[in-house]
Structures are given as C-alpha cells and as structure tokens.
C-alpha cells in the first residue's frame, strides 16, 4: 500500500519507522483500535470538536471541488450520559454506492499525497476515523444517506472491519425521495458537549468566518440553533500545486530534488524544478560558481549545491506565483467578520505572498475587529456592564485552529505586538477579535496534531507586519472613539452643572429655571461643536506628520494639559493658611 506509507510519514513524524513496522503486523484499523489517541480524538470535549471538523471539512472540500455553494447542517443530540448522536448534512456532490465505503469506511484512504498545494488540513484521521471511533465507543455503525445529481439516492449503515481495514456496508437500499449531498448520522460515547472556546459551536463559527461562501447551521443538544449565513457567493478558486521557490530551498532539499530529476543538466534542472527560475538567474549563478552548470544534476556535490543555494540568496527573484495560494480576500473577510463577529470597527490587511524556508510560498491575512460584539464576553462588572476579553482567531488554510493556543506562532505574533502603540491599553481586556489566517502550500505545523504553527522567522515577520499595519489603521478609530467618549463625558458634566447653575441664577434673578437650563444646554452643544471644529483643524495640521512626530506632538500636548491642570490645582490651594 504505497499510499499508506506516504501518509504514515506525515501523521506520525519521527515514529514513522515504528509505525511502518506495526502496520505490517496489523491492519491500520486494528492499529488505531489499540491506539485511539492517534485518531486525534483525545479529551472528551476536544473529541466532539475534531469529529465535527472532520465531517465539515469533507463537506467543504467536496463542495469546493464540485463548485457548489456549501450549505451544511450540523445537529448534536444528547442521547445518554456522555453519549451523543451527531447529524451532518451537506448539499455537496454526494457519494455513490461505490465511493461511500472508501470515503467513510477506510482509514487513510482519502488522504492526499504530500504535495505542495494549499489544502484544508485534517486533524484526526478523516471521516473514516470518526466511523472507527463510533464503532470503538458504541459498537454501532453510522447511518448514511447520499445522492448525486444523477441516479437514485440511497441509504445504508456503514462500519469498519478493523481486521482488514475495509468498510462494511449493511442495509443498503435505494430511496425514492430526491436527495443530493451526504447526510451522516453517527453515535459517539465518552464525549462531552460543553460551551467553550474549543466547542463545536466555536469551531463552526470560526469555520464560517474563514469560509464566507458557506452557510453553516448548528443545533446544540439543548435545541438552540445558530446559523452562520454566507456572506459571499464566490466559491474559492482551486489552488494549483507549485514548485519550490529558490529563496527558501535548502541544500538538502535541492540535492534530493536533483537525485530524482529528469533533467540532464544542472541549469535545466534548476529551471524545471524551481519556481520563478529564469535564464537571467541561471546566467548569474553560472558566473558566480566555479563549476559548469551543464553537468549532470545527479552528480551534484553537496558543496556545489551549497554554492547554488548561496547564490539564490543574492539574486532577486519574483515572488512566488499568487495563484498557488488562494487567499480569502480582504473584502470577503470584511463581510464575513462584519456579519458574524459584528464589531463596531474592522480593519483587514492582506499581505503579498512570500516564501519561508523550504521554498514554500505563504501569505497572511489578518483582521482586527474592535468594539460592538468583538471579543469574548466575560461576564459583567459590578455595574452590570459587559466585560470584554480579547480573542485571537487562528486559521491555517481556512481551517480554524482551536487547540494548543500558546504554542502557536499566530498567537505569539499577536502577543508580541505592543498594542498600546495602537491605542489598545489593555490587550487582554479589550473588545477585540484578532483574525489571523496563514495560507501556505505547506503549513509549518509544530506537530502531527496540526493545531499550532511553528514560529518560522519569515512567517513571524509577515504576521507582525500585517498586524501592525492593521493596528495603525485601527488606532485612528480607537483614538476617534476615545475622543467621542471624552466629548460625551464633557457634555454630561456641563449638563449636570447646568442644572445647578440654572437653579442658582433663577433664584438670584427670580426667573424660571427651565428656560435658563435649556439655553445653557444650547450653549454647551454649540461650544462642543466649536471645539470639535478646532480639533479637526488641528488634526489636519497633524496630517503629513510621521507617526513618531504625531506621537511626540501628542506627548507634548498631554504634558501641557497636565501642567495646566496642576496649575489650576495649585492656584486653588495657594493662599495662606
């Protein structure tokens, strides 16, 4: 089974050799029956989320492939203690009687080859892993209904025969009602539904954010249904596989590629196997190295490969092809976050694709949502006002990353920003949703769990630049918002005193209080408007200044204001005993 060998390497990392050994002795299914944790299904709460992820990812991928706008319905019912039934239905191309077994009942069958293409990652071991887990925890098969656009729809029960890693289909029968897509009903034990940052609901919310073309609804065990409407009708373009970019290739990788190339000369090998490698670059390399580029690439020595890689660093290459990465896109992210997060203000920054070591193009998209319903509501304070905490939504190739938050480069990048510079005084306790999407043909995950991204230098740099750019934009808004709040506080103060002043003037002049107070209010509003105008003029003067200059001006102004305030205080204190 050559397919399996490929995947073992990827999912099990350093223990690949041990795994290979075991695989020879048992079927894959048997192996996982003994090693459930390797299905990625550890933890009662996490397991449910991962299962939902597997099914929903399958549906999204299938729809994308078939160019269908996904409509996904997920329903979770509690049928006993730590015993749940999950129902997932999509409107995708559907499975046939021939493909249903392989798709849902054969472990590792659906996984893709290791190739340089942007794809939604799998976290456990695919939909078949869920079938497996259902069998392990309940002993029951899953129920499937499926229909394609042509032919009759069918339903069946499906489970896995662990001994031979093959699906077992039972009660297969055609149904007369028209049905398109796949509906799966599966039971699981030893799992638990709980509302948290890592619950299926949160997972689906984030999935909806990163897949604005999908409509996703989720019904919780208590019957509450949440629907995330689609905000875009654009089905993401299909990403294309690409070659490594010379800027990121390592000596070892170059030599490995040279070993398997069909090219006969080093020069043609470089041009054929690497992205953005033109004649001009070959010419430059040939001038700078002390060996002939017409030699057989299979005979390339380590030192020579090293020299070539050194030259790569010096030469200017065009950035990797953008079509190898399909970003969600600034506008679509905006619409999506506006619809689902409902912030008061939003800034989205999309960076140009670049490369991190290994020649892997990647690109980051970030969004900062502030105010409104942004952030996580964390209870209320003594006065009954909502208390907000910030949240960081991490995505890798459109897939939300819910676990291993601290160990992830995306989190670290957000935390490394000095948010105070952008008007966010207390990052953790602000109504703030940070959206971070990393796209790459090869996401540098920290481990097999694919829950955290490792802090590659180039990735970190890009993330920080994007976040700072968005931060600068949001700064203006927060500054404005703060100004408005100050203005409102001022108005309130003047109104408050106006009432007292009006009473006193009324008593002194023996006139009615109300008209005086009304007049005072008019004066206050007129005054504040005038003040606003003056400030706007001042702000205009500030334009054209660099950020540091603005900051300096601001500090100066603050110091002056403080001095004035102190002077007033001193004045009132001065005088003799």
């Amino acid at each position, binding site marked *: 089974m050559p397919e399996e060998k490929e995947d073992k390497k990827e999912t099990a990392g350093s223990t690949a050799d041990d795994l290979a050994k075991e695989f020879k002795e048992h079927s894959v299914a048997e192996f996982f029956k003994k090693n459930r944790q390797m299905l990625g299904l550890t933890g009662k709460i996490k397991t449910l989320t991962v299962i939902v992820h597997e099914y929903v990812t399958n549906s999204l991928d299938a729809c994308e492939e078939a160019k269908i706008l996904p409509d996904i319905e997920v329903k979770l019912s509690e049928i006993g203690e730590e015993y749940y039934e999950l129902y997932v239905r999509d409107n995708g191309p559907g499975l046939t009687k021939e493909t249903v077994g392989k798709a849902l009942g054969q472990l590792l069958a659906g996984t893709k080859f290791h190739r340089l293409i942007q794809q939604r990652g799998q976290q456990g071991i695919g939909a078949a892993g869920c079938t497996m887990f259902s069998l392990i925890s309940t002993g029951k098969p899953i129920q499937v209904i499926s229909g394609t656009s042509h032919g009759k729809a069918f339903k069946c029960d499906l489970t896995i025969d662990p001994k031979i890693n093959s699906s077992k289909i039972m009660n297969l029968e055609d149904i007369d009602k028209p049905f398109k897509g796949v509906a799966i009903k599966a039971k699981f034990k030893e799992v638990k539904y709980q509302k948290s940052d890592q619950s299926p609901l949160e997972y689906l919310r984030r999935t909806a954010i990163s897949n604005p073309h999908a409509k996703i609804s989720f019904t919780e065990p208590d019957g509450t249904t949440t629907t995330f409407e689609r905000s875009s009708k654009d089905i993401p373009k299909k990403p294309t596989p690409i070659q490594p970019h010379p800027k990121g290739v390592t000596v070892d990788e170059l030599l490995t590629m040279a070993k398997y190339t069909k090219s006969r000369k080093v020069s043609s090998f470089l041009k054929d196997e690497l992205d953005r490698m033109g004649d001009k670059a070959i010419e430059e390399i040939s001038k700078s190295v002390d060996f002939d580029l017409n030699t057989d690439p299979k005979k390339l020595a380590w030192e020579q490969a090293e020299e070539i890689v050194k030259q790569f660093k010096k030469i200017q290459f065009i950035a990797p092809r953008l079509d190898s990465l399909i970003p969600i896109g600034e506008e679509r992210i905006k619409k999506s976050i506006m619809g689902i997060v409902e912030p008061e203000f939003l800034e989205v920054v999309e960076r140009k694709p670049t490369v991190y070591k290994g020649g892997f193009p990647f690109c980051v998209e970030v969004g900062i949502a502030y105010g409104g319903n942004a952030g996580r509501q964390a209870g209320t304070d003594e006065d009954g006002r909502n208390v907000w905490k910030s949240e960081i939504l991490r995505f890798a190739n459109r897939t939300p990353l819910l676990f291993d938050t601290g160990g992830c480069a995306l989190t670290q990048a957000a935390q490394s920003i000095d948010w105070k510079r952008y008007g966010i005084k207390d990052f953790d306790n602000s109504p703030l949703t940070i959206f971070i999407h990393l796209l790459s043909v090869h996401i540098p995950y920290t481990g097999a769990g694919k829950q955290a991204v490792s802090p590659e230098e180039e990735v970190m740099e890009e993330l920080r630049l994007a976040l700072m750019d968005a931060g600068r934009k949001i700064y203006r808004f927060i500054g404005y918002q703060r100004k408005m709040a100050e203005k409102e506080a001022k108005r309130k103060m003047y109104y408050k*005193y106006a009432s007292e002043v009006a009473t006193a003037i009324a008593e002194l002049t023996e006139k009615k209080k109300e008209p005086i107070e009304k007049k005072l209010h008019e004066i206050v509003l007129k005054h504040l408007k005038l003040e606003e105008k003056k400030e706007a003029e001042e702000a205009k003067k500030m334009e054209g200044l660099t950020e540091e200059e603005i900051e300096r001006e601001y500090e100066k102004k603050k110091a002056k204001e403080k001095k004035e305030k102190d002077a007033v205080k001193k004045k009132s204190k001065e005088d003799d005993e």
Partner: protein
Amino acid sequence: MQDKQVTKKLEDAGEEILKQIDKGENPNYELPIRNLNNIFFDEKSKTIKLGDKTSSRQFLNVAHSRKFMQTMLVAAGLKKVIKEQATTSIRDLFYNMKHTIEGTDENTFDTQDESDPLIEDLEASLNVLREELHLIATPKGLVAGEVKIKEAGGSVIDVSKMGSSGWAVPSNVEPEKIEIKEVDADYVLFIEKYATWNRFNEDQFWKKGKCILLTGKGQPARAERRFAQRLAKEQGLPIYALCDADPWGYYIYSVIKQGSISLSYSEEKLANPDTKFIGLTTQDAAEFKIPKDAQIKLNKEDLKRLAEMKDYSWFKKKEWQKEFDYMKEKGFKMELEALSAKSIRFITETYLPKKIQTKDFLP
C-alpha cells in the same frame, strides 16, 4: 452697607450671567485674583492690598465648570441668608448648599474647604464685608483685661470679671454690634497660643502689666483682628504680638500687622499696621539662656516657608532679615512654651517685663 444694597449686588451678578446666557455666550464671572501674584504692600496704609488683576471663571471650561457652578450656588445661598434676616456660620452655609446633583452621585460641595474660598471670592468681587453677608466664622478668640463691652441690645460685660475663661470674641465686632467701654490698659498683648494666653490670664498679668490679653488660638480670625484694630484706633493702644519663634509664628504676626493674602481685599478694616513683635525670636535663646533642649531643629517645610517670607516685601526691614538669617544659620525654632523650660512663670515674670522695659521689639 444695607442688606438691600448687598442683595442688589448679588442679584446684579446673577443678572449679568443671565444676560450672557441669553446672548448665547459662555457664562463667565470676573473676579480678583487672590494670590501672591496679585497683592501688594501699600506703603501708605501699611497693609497688604489686593491688586487689580482679575481672572475669569468660565462655565464652559473643564477646569472651572464645577467652581463656576459652586460660585453661583454660594451667591444664591447668600441671597437667601440675607432675605431670611438670619446670621449664618460659613459652615451652616456649606451644609445648606451641599446636596447631590440630580441624576448623579456627585455632591455640589464635598467639603467646607470648597465653599469657604468662594465666599471670599464673592466678598472680594462684590466688595462687601463678610458681616454684611450675614456670615460668621466660628469665633474662637478670647479676651482678658480691664475692659467693658456693651453688646447691642444687651447688657454690659465686665471682661475683668470673666475669670479664667475670659470673654469670647463674638463673630461680629462692628460698632453697631458692640461698644468698647472703660478700657484701663496701656497696650494690647496679642498672643498666638491659647496655652500662653491662659498662663498670662491665670497670673492675672493684665492687672500687673496693665494690658489687654487677646488670643486668636493660632491664626486669628477676622473678628479678633478687627477687635484689636478697634482697640488700637478707638483707645489708642499699641499692639504687641507674642508668637512662636518659627516661620508660622512670624506669619501670624504678619497677618495681625498687615493682613493676609486671601483677605487682602478688606485688610484696611482688619490690619493693625502699628503692631510690634515682642517675641519669641531665635535671638532670644541666647539673650535669655533658654536651654538647648527647648530648641527644635528646622525641617524642610520650615526652611521653605522661611525663604518665602524672606522675600515678602513687608518683611524687608533689616531687623527681620537679620532674624531670618539668624534662624537659618542656627537652624532651630522655638515655641512659646520653651520659656517654661526655665520656669513656669518665667514668661510672665521675667521675659515679658524685660522685653517691654528694654523695648526689645521687632518692627
């Protein structure tokens, strides 16, 4: 000034603000600045006087707004007090005006410290006396000596028969309230501290020394100073001050003599420019061989205050400059009680008689 006139002044101030409001202007109120930057020593009257610098208190100014509101409340409150023909203490007035602003948890006034200076502001800007506003400060002054006081509509009080408690100075000592009669004294002894006054009274020094003993228990209020002024003007008595030998004691003397900064607008009615300073001085320490133990080291605050006073124009006389320099050089201060270190009656039996006899005064 008649109540009617005072009321009119208050009402006019209100009308002025109302006019501004009707015109849609930022309501503001002009008032004299009452701090060191706007007072001067008037060589003619020998008192501190208020200069003509004014500042505008504005409603639409974050730093002024609350004070503006409070000033208006004080003006309205005063009008009420006069209308009701009552005499109110400034503390009563404070409580009268203090309330929670509707719909907020903020008080119009939090402490009396907020309302008192505003009353002085109004006195200064309207040019009226506190007494004319029907306001009194809590009286605290005491008098002992051969003098009779006739209160308006009341009986005659023989102060010499008041015993150890003395006669309490009422808050209003204007001629229409009290009459000073049958004074038998050569001078007035204005004593800073009650304890010292008590010693003198207990020893019946007023009899022996033929003087009137007066204390304001610390910084004297306007009533005590006004009373002293009347004794000086009507009876021709010189005034001698007896205070601690420290910057604060010297300043109390200065207030008795030429007035205070905050009340600079009415010092002509309160100050006693001919007052002389008997003591205590730091130079007395050597002269009277006061034990070192009774000396207190000057602290940072003392030195700061000392430097400030050295700069006051009315302290520029060479005798005072010499005392300031001496105090600074020696680095100590003394309280009046330091004299008790010699013996309990040292102050009444030795110190004061000797000082008066040798005319060892500071101007």
